[in-house]
């Protein structure tokens, strides 16, 4: 499967990787990380959040986790890392997602902080910095955003001028994570006015000053500061990559960053569900634990369904990237090059996961607060912090709006370039709409026959709407943001629903239908709801540009392609919730 190909092709269950298949090494990493977090982080979250009073807590914890090798897990062995494979890295990210502000610090360090050097550094730069970054001896920070350039990253104003043997940097960066304690700053500046370029700046360089810690809504423990550059002089060798090619660094590390974020929030979801169900089991009202009540069961189940779906999507994408890395390595690329290219190949999927994950987590923590009732509002209980800390995920690493438009935009671009053949399936759909169906019964010998058919049809609905929009607006489609958002929502829903079904199908193959009973219900419920959302988004999209008979015909088509037999989602959710309640944690 190529990047974006999911929209026109159905992946096989045997092709996907599912968490049930984690190997021993991965299981070991998971428990090692989890142990660390539960022993060192969770008891201290309140203290960590009082960042001004305890500024050294996170740097110290980074040192500790660095010593376990976690920070360098994904780095090549020749630079001091462990060189673990991509699926293992994903597992690590998931667990780190349970560690709130600390997790953000780790992610910023290992992701956007370290990868620029790994992917674009010279051999000298890599040997100089990577070993330290691997152990945590050197801590990294990524300086892209400025007061006047956030989503519009390339509008940055920070300047770099070559003066003899040195670069002179002038400018200001804002919202920089880890700035308070970082040893290395990856800085993006304009050379000669509009050549966007990356540089490495070390702490202590004269002229580099920090603003105060920002007082934030959430992730209060994470150091976030403005960084000022006033005639900061750095050696010529600190140029990172090529002049004018800084955007390649920025966009590529963001791809991986987006994926990692998706993986991390899963951990957060699972933790939140655990905390919520434990509370629900203990809290009694009207003479019984509130976990007996349908309203609460609905929430617990829905939280789990979204987590399960996100989980499935995460590992599906991890596997696609992982396989691609192996393929590229076999063709002669270095591991770093391979990882970069693989993430680029699946940039659409990564963008999807970022949106899916951040919005799932927001839902989960929101309902967790609700389950906690009044106590959810008190900072004495962990959910309030989780609620606040979650919110940033929809904003950084590219806002969810940007990521939605990117997902659809990249799909269209690949179609234009001929990498993704959207035309042929779109034409076939026109024919299919005029085709007289069998009016007969489907052969449902296969367990997920109806579901897979529905997913295949939902993809057609997307191609129908997207194709018509592309034909109407051509190049101007990129300015029709509302329509792009609708199309993106449809694509995200179909990808996720398919991921959940495929994972469950594979699981049934491994463990049998009986053992997978609840997973089947979760996947089906997610799909059932997703199809309705896809229908609605499709309607809004096409009504935004078509009229009269043309519109009616498209609406008929979209309706036909999102039809699904109604299922008893209330009963399904009750069964799912009961399992969570019995296990007193997220059991899937």
């Amino acid at each position: 499967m190529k990047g974006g190909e999911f929209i026109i092709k159905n992946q096989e269950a045997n092709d996907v990787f599912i968490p049930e298949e984690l190997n021993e090494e991965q299981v070991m990493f998971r428990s090692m990380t989890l142990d660390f977090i539960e022993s060192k982080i969770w008891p201290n979250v309140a203290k960590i959040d009082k960042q001004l009073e305890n500024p050294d807590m996170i740097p110290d914890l980074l040192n500790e986790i660095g010593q376990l090798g976690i920070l360098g897990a994904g780095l090549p062995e020749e630079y001091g890392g462990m060189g673990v494979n991509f699926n293992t890295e994903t597992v690590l990210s998931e667990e780190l997602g349970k560690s709130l502000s600390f997790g953000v610090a780790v992610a910023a360090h290992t992701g956007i902080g370290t990868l620029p050097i790994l992917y674009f550094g010279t051999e000298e730069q890599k040997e100089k910095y990577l070993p330290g970054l691997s152990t945590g001896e050197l801590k990294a920070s990524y300086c892209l955003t400025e007061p006047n350039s956030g989503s519009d990253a390339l509008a940055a104003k920070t300047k770099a001028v070559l003066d003899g043997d040195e670069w002179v940097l002038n400018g200001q960066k804002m919202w920089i994570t880890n700035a308070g304690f970082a040893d290395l700053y990856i800085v993006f500046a304009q050379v000669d006015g509009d050549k966007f370029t990356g540089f490495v700046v070390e702490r202590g360089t004269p002229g580099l000053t920090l603003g105060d810690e920002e007082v934030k809504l959430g992730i209060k423990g994470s150091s976030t500061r403005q960084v000022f550059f006033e005639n900061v002089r750095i050696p010529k060798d600190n140029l990172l990559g090529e002049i004018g090619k800084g955007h390649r660094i920025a966009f590529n590390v963001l791809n991986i960053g987006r994926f990692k974020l998706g993986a991390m929030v899963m951990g957060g979801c699972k933790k939140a569900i655990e905390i919520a169900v434990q509370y629900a089991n203990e809290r009694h009202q009207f003479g019984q634990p509130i976990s007996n009540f349908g309203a609460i069961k609905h929430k617990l189940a829905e939280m789990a369904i979204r987590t399960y779906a996100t989980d499935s999507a995460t590992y599906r994408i991890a596997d696609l990237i992982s396989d691609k890395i192996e393929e590229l390595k076999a063709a002669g690329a270095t591991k770093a090059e391979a990882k970069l290219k693989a993430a680029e190949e699946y940039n659409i999927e990564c963008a999807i996961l970022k949106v899916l994950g951040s919005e799932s987590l927001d839902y989960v923590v929101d309902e967790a607060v609700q389950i906690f009732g009044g106590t959810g509002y008190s900072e004495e209980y962990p959910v309030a912090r989780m609620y606040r800390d979650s919110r940033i995920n929809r904003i950084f690493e590219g806002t969810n709006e940007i990521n939605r438009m990117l997902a659809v935009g990249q799909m269209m671009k690949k179609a234009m370039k001929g990498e993704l053949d959207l035309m042929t399936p779109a034409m076939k759909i026109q024919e299919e709409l005029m085709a007289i169906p069998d009016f007969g019964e489907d052969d449902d010998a296969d367990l997920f026959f109806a579901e897979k058919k529905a997913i295949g049809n939902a993809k057609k609905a997307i191609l129908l709407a997207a194709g018509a929009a592309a034909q109407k607006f051509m190049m101007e489609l990129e300015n029709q943001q509302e329509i792009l958002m609708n199309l993106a929502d449809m694509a995200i829903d179909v990808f996720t629903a398919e991921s959940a079904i495929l994972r469950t199908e594979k699981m049934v193959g491994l463990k049998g239908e009986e053992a997978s009973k609840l997973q089947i219900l979760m996947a089906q419920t997610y799909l059932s709801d997703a199809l309705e959302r896809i229908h609605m988004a499709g309607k809004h999209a096409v009504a935004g540009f078509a009229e009269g008979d043309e519109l009616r015909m498209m609406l008929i088509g979209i309706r036909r392609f999102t039809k699904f037999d109604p299922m008893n989602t209330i009963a399904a959710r009750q069964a799912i919730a009961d399992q969570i309640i019995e296990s007193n944690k997220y059991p899937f």
Partner: protein
Amino acid sequence: MHVIEADKRKIRSVAILGSGVMGSQLACHYANIGLKVFLLDILPFDLKEGEKEKIQARNRVGNTALKAALKSNPSPVYTKDVARRITVGNMEDNMSWLSKVDWIIEAVVENLGIKNEVFEKAELHRKPGTLVTSNTSGIPITMMLNGRSDDFQAHFCGTHFFNPPRYLPLLEIIPTEKTHPEVVNFLMHYGDLFLGKQTVLCKDTPAFIANRIGVFSIMAIFHLMAEMDMTIEEVDAVTGPVSGRPKSATFRTCDLVGIDTLVKVANGVAQNCPNDEARELFTIPDFLDKMVENKWLGDKTRQGFYKKSRDASGKRVIEALDLQTFEYKPKTKPRFESIGTARQSDVLKKRLKILAKGSDKAARFIQALNLKVFAYASNRIPEIAGQLYQIDEAMKAGFGWELGPFEAWDVLGVSRILETMEAKGEKPADWVVEMVENGVEQFYKTENGARYYYNITTKSYEVLPGSEENIVLDNYRSNKLVWGNKGASLHDIGDGVLCLEFHTKMNAIGSEILLGINKAIDVAEQDGWKGVVIGNDAANFSAGANLAMMLMLAIEQEYDELNIAINYFQKTVMRLRYSSVPVVMAPHGMTLGGGCEMSLHADSTVAAAETYIGLVEFGAGLIPGGGGTKEFVVRTSDGFYEGDPQLPSLQERFTTIATAKVATSGFEAFEIGVLHEDKDEVVLNKKRLISSAKEKVLELDQEGYVMPVKRDDILVLGRTALGTLYAGIEAFGVSNFATEHDQKIARKLAFVMAGGDLSQPTRVSEQYLLDLEREAFLSLLGERKTLERIQHILKTGKPLRN
């Protein structure tokens, strides 16, 4: 010598000398417009001894030719009985007939000597004042004046028709110095109004206008394709509909015209136009000579640039000539990015602009060709035509180009092209350079519904002849619409008359057009307009109702929605008749199904001669459900006179619908009962259609238009008819003329037309019949076989018999 004034001259009969392909078809067309025609040819060469006295034998040449013409496809006659107006004779025995006719047309072989002999013989019998014209395409008209009397010369002119003369609109009028102005005026006007042609005044130069420019274009194409190394398929891909030329593009056109003809015309120019600056280009390329040698002349010898054959498995394939290897290979479908992008637009002007900006081979080819054709055309004025619009009209009417060279030049930007010409070394005429230098940016402009062209003599804009009298909706685009939606636009066409123009794909009637019709009548009634014309300038008036939509709704089994949709259609169609202003329909081209149903209901239908109209719902597995079936019952009922046998009349109407009969001309439409003598008429010249319809509205308004009263007195025959009709259907089934499904549809049709299972003939209302129609229509939409028929028509355009 007295020459009758143009507006006083009357033509009642015509003599045609020479019954070749053109002569025999000309005879048919003059008969089409209602004249008496005498068709004369030479005695047969192989006249046997015993036959020498027999008139039939002596007229054999003409008789055989006429018979062949009448059998040919497409038909040269509007209706079968047209042929009865033609009398065949021969040039030995019947030259005296020439003294009785008003116009003599020479259409003999292209040999000056023979033509002069014919004229000499004709002059012996010709009455002074009779018109004499020649259909020659290659011989200078002036040369045919030698030896002729003054009166003959004053009444002699070239009238160059194009093959086939019923269908191709161009009529080139080529006077000599001696032709009297009243004769020229007459021919220009008669050809337009009576023969329905686009008349263009030409100078007496080789190939006149259309062939001179058209053949130049072809020769330029040969030249450019050799330079740019292109195949004939590649050339045809870019010189077809995408750039506003007919489907036959370049090489298929050559095959149709005949390669020997092409060579003849090209040689004619090369030899006889010593001052043509592009003379070199008319040199016949080697491959063309070779093709003539091999007798690969095109359709007439079954192979030319293309050849139809069968492949190894017996399947029909089209092969194209590879000019490098001179062998035939299976036809390829070349893909060019510029063409792909251009084809995304439905609007020709946009496509031309996209091609003008392209950089691949196809785009560069058409850019180079345009420069050559534009420059050449500009340099031909005043040599072959007095004004630029004449060249444009000739190319559009004779070669089927959507835009003439100067119109296309306007679209691409006159000065921009001039600059490119300079850069590429093409030399346009001085008058164009001067025009631009004087600040005139375009050859044409449109203002207030009239079109103006740049007059080269007065150096200013003049009204384009015909543009004020003829209504061309394109000239109204810059005006503010009275109303419009995505599918229809309502124009003010002057004198208090509105015109509703359809513009959907194939002008299929969907919710937008239905809304448009209702709105147009509402506006007319409320705001005091005199009436509404429903007409458009698209290739076809309307291909019928939006079947695709109906199919989709039927597949979803949305019968409620379908019922509402059909009801809306019926109500709209009824509104055409039941409104307090006159509504006149102006159909042309394909007017099928729903389009035909509308024509049935309009207060008057003014149809173009070339209208293909009929109730074709049977082919789609349906019956006419928009009031068409009902209207046929009404007309049947209204046609009963006291004592008439009623059933046969109903049976005939039933059969018309059941066989999905389509009239192949406006005239034939009367014969199949779709047009009605009392209220409808046919217009020969399509350009005059909308203005004629407008006149009809004004006429109806003048007479005092009163909204008809709804009918409740329609006689339906009930069981009496049902029995007979059912029996007939059964018989057809048994003899395998009708499939099961055909019979099912037919039975439903019979039920409606009989007015239902009534025990005796009854008088019913229109709504009663409309309800029966709708019910039958809906029930057929629930039948799988009907859905399959609809699907087939949508996919292939052809009916399915399942």
